[in-house]
């Protein structure tokens, strides 16, 4: 059905959030007094006026069918006068004014397969990226790994028994769209083989100087192949960052040998300790679809060792800093390799430049 031609609308920006705020929020905007997590997945915010807002947080796989969004809309209609929001970590929150509706709302969500939790000292949703579902750059799948890891860590989503919040993030390549560089545990897709160049298509598809200068280590060099201008890769200089691939469609980096690495100890908040980067724990695990058993086992191990040893309020990185990295590797039984020692631009900043460490009293 053809619609009548209208003036093209552009640059209007998003609709104002004010259209979507429930009355209780409009009334108490900026006047909340305190909050309490009344049970896993349920926040109660109390306002200066005494008003109370209950937020029920449910997991989503982020990748959502329109029908699922319609389901959430219907649940919101049933329990929250139609008001809901999403969180910065892809959970959905139902904004309830009437305390009596909290439990029925939870029951409904669980029934539909969207569990409630991820609050307080728990493991909440994994921030993640596209993987094999959509991105050309992916060294691994995203949603699949996330699903398997969360299936295993599920009890930590539904409870609040960890020493502190534990944030997991996932990115399928070194571009790190999942911003895994500051997470308690980060999973990162990695390529481990140098790029392969299609010399045939390259002259037409790529700007050679851009491609050469894209490489941070100078591993991409101009070359003439079969009389045509192209580039070649100095393999020893490649650290598989994929930057040449990003700027040149004739370069291929994806390879069945791709896999994942595991990083630990990052954080974003300023609470107690300044924000920290995640640090390398496991350099490489092969892709093992459909259930990625080694990744799952490795993450679970780290979570359990942390849960057992960290003190209350201690995020992963704070705990490791207190006990020292040698102890972390000892407790988790993860082997320490040359890959763990930084060798990029600022490598030297991570060297231990003191005698200030725990001497193990094991004889050499």
């Amino acid at each position, binding site marked *: 059905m053809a619609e009548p031609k*209208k003036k*093209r609308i552009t640059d*209007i*920006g*998003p*609709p104002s*959030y004010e*259209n*979507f705020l429930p009355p209780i*929020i409009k009334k108490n*905007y900026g006047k*909340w007094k305190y909050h309490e997590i009344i049970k896993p997945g349920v926040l109660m*915010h109390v306002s200066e006026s005494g008003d109370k*807002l209950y937020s029920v947080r449910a*997991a989503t*796989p*982020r*990748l959502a*069918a329109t*029908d699922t*969004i*319609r389901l959430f*809309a*219907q649940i919101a209609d049933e329990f929250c006068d*139609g*008001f809901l*929001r*999403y969180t*910065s970590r892809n959970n959905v929150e139902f*904004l309830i004014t009437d305390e009596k509706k909290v439990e029925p709302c939870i029951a409904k969500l669980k029934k539909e397969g969207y*569990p409630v939790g991820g609050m307080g000292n728990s493991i909440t949703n994994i921030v993640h990226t596209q*993987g*094999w*579902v959509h*991105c*050309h750059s992916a060294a691994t*799948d995203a949603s699949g790994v996330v*699903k*398997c890891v969360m*299936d295993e860590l*599920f009890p930590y*989503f539904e409870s609040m028994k960890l020493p502190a919040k534990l944030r997991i993030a996932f990115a399928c390549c070194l571009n*790190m*769209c999942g911003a895994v*560089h500051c997470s308690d545990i980060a999973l990162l897709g990695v390529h481990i083989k140098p790029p392969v160049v299609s010399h045939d298509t390259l002259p037409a598809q790529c700007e050679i100087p851009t491609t050469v200068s894209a490489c*941070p280590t100078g591993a991409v060099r101009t070359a003439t192949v079969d009389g045509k201008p192209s580039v070649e890769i100095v393999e020893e200089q490649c650290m598989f*960052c994929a930057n040449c691939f990003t700027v040149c469609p004739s370069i291929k980096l994806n390879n069945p040998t791709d896999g994942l690495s595991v990083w630990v100890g990052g954080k*974003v*908040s*300023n*609470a*107690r300790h300044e*924000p920290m*980067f995640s640090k390398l724990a496991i350099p490489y695990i*092969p*892709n093992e679809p*459909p259930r990625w058993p080694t990744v799952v086992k490795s993450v679970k191990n780290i979570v359990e060792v942390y849960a057992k040893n960290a003190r*209350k*309020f201690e995020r992963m990185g704070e705990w490791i800093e207190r006990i020292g990295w040698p102890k972390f590797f000892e407790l988790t039984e993860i082997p320490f390799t040359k890959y763990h020692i930084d060798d*990029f631009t600022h490598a030297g900043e991570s060297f231990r430049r003191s005698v200030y460490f725990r001497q193990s009293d094991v004889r050499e």
Partner: protein
Amino acid sequence: MAAKLRETPLIDELLKGPWPSFVKEIKKCAQNEKNERGSARSNDLLGVLERSYKETIGHWKHGGIVGVMGYGGGVIGRYNDLPEEFPNVAHFHTIRVNQPSGWFYTSDILRKLCDIWDKHGSGITNMHGSTGDIVFLGCATDDLEPTFADLTALGFDLGGSGSAVRTPSCCCGMARCEWACYDTMALTDDLTRTFQDELHRPAFPYKFKFKMSGCPNDCVASIARADMSIIGTWRDDIQIDQKAVADYASKLNLENDVISRCPTKCMSWDGKKLSIDNSNCVKCMHCINAMPKALAPGKDRGATILLGSKAPIIGGALLSSVIVPFLKIEPPYEDIKELAEAIWDLWAEHGKNRERVGEFIQRIGMGNFLEQIGLEPRPEMVINPRSNPYIFYDQDQE
């Protein structure tokens, strides 16, 4: 009527387990009777995915330049490398739809968005993309413009991509958090509106992201993921309700859980009264987080502005660094806008291709950068003054 679902034994393994399954979501779309073309797309997506699971390799190719008229961004082009086998996902672009600040919705508006996407696309979404957009995943080239027309008619617009301002995002702030030191949602909305042109028509050396967090807990990871991070803070004394502290004293181990965890050890508790040496408080939030009923940020609130965080490509990841230690955040936010524009002017002129602002500052030097954008150097900008003696002394003055 939706086509028969493809056989996908490998990814069907991902239907199992307690965590909600994305495979189930794609299958819902593949079976969506309201959306015939879309369900065929989703069905092919299942096939592609199964194939990737078998071969441990992805099947997507570099995107080309696709988009809507007059915009330089908002759409990510994506093509499949097995178009014969999976014709319905031969082109399978994503549309980034700018979310409302704070990700608040009504059931009504969500249904209308779903109607648009069922009409034109695969029915698959991301709620939300990592930058904050509503992501419509799987659009054919021809469907882009009609989708856009319906979106704008509903009052929505595209988010950013390419070398442009990216969709700003924020924590829920004053809407639902007692710690918000400024109105994150209002600022985000205002900046998004003000910078529509910079958002839709890439004119920078590289992308530029804004993220607003209402307090140092930084619930949108602003310090790690934004070229300009605006993080709420305060500069007077933490508000204390001594009675409530006393209540906590019976539930918490005040000494172990709060006092000794203060990074500057500026608190003390004599069994009756909690004292804070506020001049030594670094606004870390821990004590407030631990006792939300008893403590609250001060009353003289505002934000710290930081610049330059980014993912590692290619010099290594950066966190944002302090550029304005404290600023009152008040509409119409002229100071923030002027600052952003001064930075963009300088960076647009002198930045290299694909050089983020954080890298640019490091290359030209913070001292030079400050001089150019007209800010005073302040010791709060550094962890410590320089330790290397390589000082570029000015030659034009003695």
